Every structure is written in structure tokens, then in C-alpha cells.
């Protein structure tokens, strides 16, 4: 895969992150007062709204893709041995997918799970 394709991903996720993170910060303290924003009922209603939950999910994917690609770039700039390069490329991909999976699990369970 050409590096320019990965950079295109980096730029696209960057722009998406600027929008979604700004929205997330505004929702968590400006449009909704902070104390209320982190209350159980409020958080539950956010996850139970299809649009809001979808936005959170996209935010998760975008920020993880952008952040871990950035970490990959930093690590590959640090050392260039073949084994290190292979290890970093695979390791970062695995960790990114694992965290995406774990975060998505939170979103799905919050959106559909039994409340206790």
C-alpha cells in the first residue's frame, strides 16, 4: 500500500476528528452543562439515540485510526530495521483493531443492553 493512501486516511480522519471532537466537547460541557452531561441518565439517553450513538462510534473509529497511524509514523521514524518495521506495522494494526472492538462493544451494549 502506498504511503500516500495512508496519508490520505490521516488527513481525512484529521478533518473528521476536528468536527467530531469539537462536537463531543461541546456536547459534554457547553451545550449540556458538564455535571448533567456525565450523569447516568443523560449518558444513557445519548447511547439510546441512534444518531448520537452513531456519532460516538464514528468518533471512536476516526480518533483511533488517526492516533495510531500517527504513533506508527513516529515509531517508524525512530528506527528503521526490517524486523522493527514489520513489528510496528502489525502491532499497531492489531492494537488499533482491538481498541476499536472494545469501544464498539461499549457502544453496542450501552445502546441495546439491559439496564441494571
Amino acid at each position, binding site marked *: 500500500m502506498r504511503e500516500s493512501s495512508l496519508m490520505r486516511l490521516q488527513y481525512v480522519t484529521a478533518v473528521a476528528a476536528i468536527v467530531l*471532537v469539537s462536537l463531543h466537547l461541546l456536547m459534554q460541557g457547553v451545550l449540556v452543562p458538564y455535571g448533567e452531561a456525565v450523569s447516568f441518565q443523560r449518558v444513557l439517553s445519548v447511547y439510546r439515540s441512534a444518531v448520537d450513538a452513531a456519532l460516538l462510534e464514528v468518533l471512536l473509529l476516526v480518533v483511533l485510526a488517526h492516533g495510531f497511524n500517527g*504513533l506508527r509514523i513516529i515509531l517508524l521514524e525512530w528506527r528503521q530495521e526490517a524486523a522493527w518495521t514489520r513489528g510496528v506495522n502489525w502491532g499497531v494494526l492489531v492494537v488499533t483493531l482491538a481498541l476499536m472492538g472494545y469501544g464498539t462493544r*461499549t457502544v453496542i451494549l450501552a445502546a441495546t443492553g439491559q439496564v*441494571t
Partner: protein
Amino acid sequence: MADKAAANRRGVAGWLDPLHFNIERWAYVFQRVTGLAVLAYVVGHIGDTSFFVGGPFGEGPSSSSWAADLGVTENVLGHLVLVMVVLVVVYHGINGARLILAEYGLIFAKPSRPEYPYRAKSLRTVQRHLIWVAIVVAILAALYSGGLMMG
């Protein structure tokens, strides 16, 4: 030791040392450092928000698990951490937007013949002002969010 000195590579210190250099170099150092800081926070945040559904072994939204989580994060130290996060996120985002514009060649002057004293034109246009915008807006956002959280 002689080999390392002979090789004369600065190593990671070369990334982190902006002394004697232009402000864009400072912006680069902070972009790298804030990026890693935000990534670390995001990983922790994915962990802590999972306690809304009871953590790794939970099955659904649990008010008791969430209350326990808020018990850990809702205090002065937790709020200070969030203020720092807002500071680094806003800086990283605005400086990042400047980088996107620069790396698309959109906020520079046209190439033209160098004139004495040969100062680089790319370092003198609006892109330099955007660095200050990033710093100032980040500080303002952090102060504002601090005010919101601490009442």
C-alpha cells in the same frame, strides 16, 4: 561510545529540541507531544467509559458501575486532567488544520526568486499566524472548560 559520537545523529533529542530554531519547529514539537498525550488519554478514556456498561465483564448499562467510575474521575485532579486534555486537543486540532492547509500548498506565497537577505517566504505568510491562533485558542478553551467544570 566513540562510534556514536562519530555517527553524530541527534536521535530523539533532535525531535524534541526546538532551541535556536524557528517557531514552526516549536509547533512541530508540540504537535508530536500533544498527539501522543491525546492518544494516551483516548486509550484511557475508552477504558473508563466502558464502565458505563460494567467494564470488560459487564453486560449492559449499570448505574452502580458508572457511579464507581465517576467516583474516580469526578474530583479536582480529574478535572485538572480534563482541562489539560482540552488544552492539548484544541492545540493539536488547530495546528493540525494549519498543517493540512500547508501540506496542500494552500497557505503559502507563490514560488518566486529569492531576494537578499534570502529569508524563506514559506515561513512568513499566514501559516505562521495560525500557530499563534492554535496556542491562544487552546489556552482560552482550557480556561473556559476549567471554569465550566469547577463552577
